[in-house]
């Protein structure tokens, strides 16, 4: 079966100019030749930090941007040259507060987009009711969107993207800015769509989200795909590693650099959790590094020290760090 999405050596360069007289041109290479393939019915995750090229990829596939070079196919069609044909068969949902008419009701928004997306009149009312039910907004459709919480807006976005029952759904960081409950509800909705057979390309920078939802993941960093496979495959890239988590308070950059220099340390990352910094140190299984690390941290205020198995997040950090 032909892939639902096929991308081959795709590049995209942005050029911007600034200054009134001495015009300065800035060139940013957002994509540096990425290739990926998504099978029909698959939920594929594009995982990467901000500015990695996730949104650029999605915008090229949804016909909103032209690539600089390379090829892309969505349902066998070229989104650059056959934009109109592609648009009728895909749905595009992005995260955040935007993309809706705030002063109008949810129903007004859905009715308008249903007409724009050629939903037949006979089916329109039933389809809108069905989608409101699916995203849990039944009974709230008569309220203005500006009164909605972020989670409700995001669910309304999903309903809008599904109005014409697209074969492929593009979700660009749909849970960004949502509270944990809202994000969980939205993930449940996405899982339900996947279970119903939709092909979904999801971009996210939340590792647990990709781990929980995706069949396969591609990790993108600085416009390049640095790894791809199932979540288990990616975890396998750090399977021979152990993680030491050390909770510290006020450890400076010089201390972190000293930890990196400890014999046997593969990688060091730092996360801020409330007042504490949590230092994540990767090392090969069997390397006895804890005592050496604690020696380097002598004089710093320490909290918990935990040794554990690597997670997808550790794999991701390692992949992005080494990109």
């Amino acid at each position, binding site marked *: 079966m032909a892939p639902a999405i096929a991308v081959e050596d795709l590049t995209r360069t942005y050029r911007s100019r600034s200054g009134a007289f001495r015009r300065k041109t800035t060139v940013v290479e957002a994509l540096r030749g990425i290739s990926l393939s998504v099978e029909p019915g698959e939920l594929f995750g594009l995982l990467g930090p901000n500015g990695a090229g996730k949104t650029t990829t999605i915008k090229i596939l949804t016909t909103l941007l032209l690539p600089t070079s390379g090829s892309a196919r969505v349902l066998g069609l070229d989104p650059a040259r056959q934009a109109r044909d592609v648009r009728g068969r895909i749905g595009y949902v992005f995260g955040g507060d935007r993309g809706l008419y705030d*002063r*109008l009701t949810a129903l007004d928004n859905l009715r308008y987009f249903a007409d724009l997306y050629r939903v037949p009149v006979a089916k329109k009312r039933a389809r809108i009711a069905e989608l409101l039910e699916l995203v849990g907004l039944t009974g709230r459709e008569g309220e203005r969107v500006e009164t909605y919480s972020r989670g409700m807006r995001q669910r309304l976005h999903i309903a809008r993207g599904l109005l014409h029952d697209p074969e492929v759904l593009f979700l660009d960081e749909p849970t960004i800015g949502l509270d944990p409950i809202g994000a969980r509800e939205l993930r449940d909705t996405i899982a339900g769509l996947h279970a119903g057979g939709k092909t979904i390309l999801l971009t996210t920078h939340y590792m647990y989200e990709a781990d929980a939802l995706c069949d396969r993941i591609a990790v993108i960093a600085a416009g390049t795909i640095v790894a791809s496979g199932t979540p288990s495959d990616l975890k396998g890239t750090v399977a021979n590693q152990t993680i030491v988590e050390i909770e510290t308070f006020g450890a400076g950059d010089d201390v972190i650099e000293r930890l990196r220099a400890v014999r046997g340390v593969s990688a060091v990352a730092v996360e801020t959790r409330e007042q504490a910094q949590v230092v994540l140190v990767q090392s090969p299984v069997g390397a006895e590094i804890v005592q050496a690390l604690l020696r380097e941290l002598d004089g710093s205020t320490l909290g918990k020290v935990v040794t554990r198995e690597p997670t997808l997040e550790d794999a991701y950090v390692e992949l992005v760090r080494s990109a």
Partner: protein
Amino acid sequence: MTRAFFSGMRIHVKQFTVNAFDLSAVVLWPILYASIAYYLLDGKNDPELLLSASLGAAVMTMWALVVLGSSGALENQRWLGTLELLVAAPMPFAVALAPITIASGVVGAYSLVATLAWGALLFDVPLSIDSPLAFAVAVPMSALAIGMLGLMTAATFVIYRAAFHLGVAMQYPVWIATGLLVPLSVLPAWVGPISWFLAPTWGFRAIRDAALGGPAWTDMGMCALLTVVYFAVAAVCLRVFENFARARATLRLT
């Protein structure tokens, strides 16, 4: 396509009318322009001149609402993030955009009623209409033609992020070139032919001739012809500019 068009009209008129600032501008502008025209012309002894000036003021408002309304609406769509969604729809972009400009023209038709009522109530401008049928057709025909001129200019707004500023800049040149602000007779001769290609010229003539007597149907024919030409040019421009915006990544403000 027709359903999408009328749905778009409904949604944009609704958007327009829930904004108190836009609504107050619609209510106040024609009254302001009509008052200025009355005092400027000092036409107490020439009721026909006063009526003509009132109608001119109404058409001025119509154009202002179209060009500012559509440029403002496009900039607003960009901020709301909905411009990308309109482009991403399977409909031709012109079908998504035309309701925005025509809705502004339709709202502008109100300015005609407000101007005439204001003139009659305060300045004793006569309300006698020579051909009510021609008048009833001329008003929506003018709104449509001016809306389509707005669509043609709105095509350029798609590629410029500061669309509203461009809209403001387009307001006065059309007022001047169509003789709405100052009579064409006081302008250089080369301005005359330019006015023939601008819908407000024929829209104003159609409404004035229907009210005061004159070849209103000929003027309306010109409005209809320009509507078709504007739409054809706008459809081509929109396709070209949409590709330009896709290449330059200017559809979204981020």
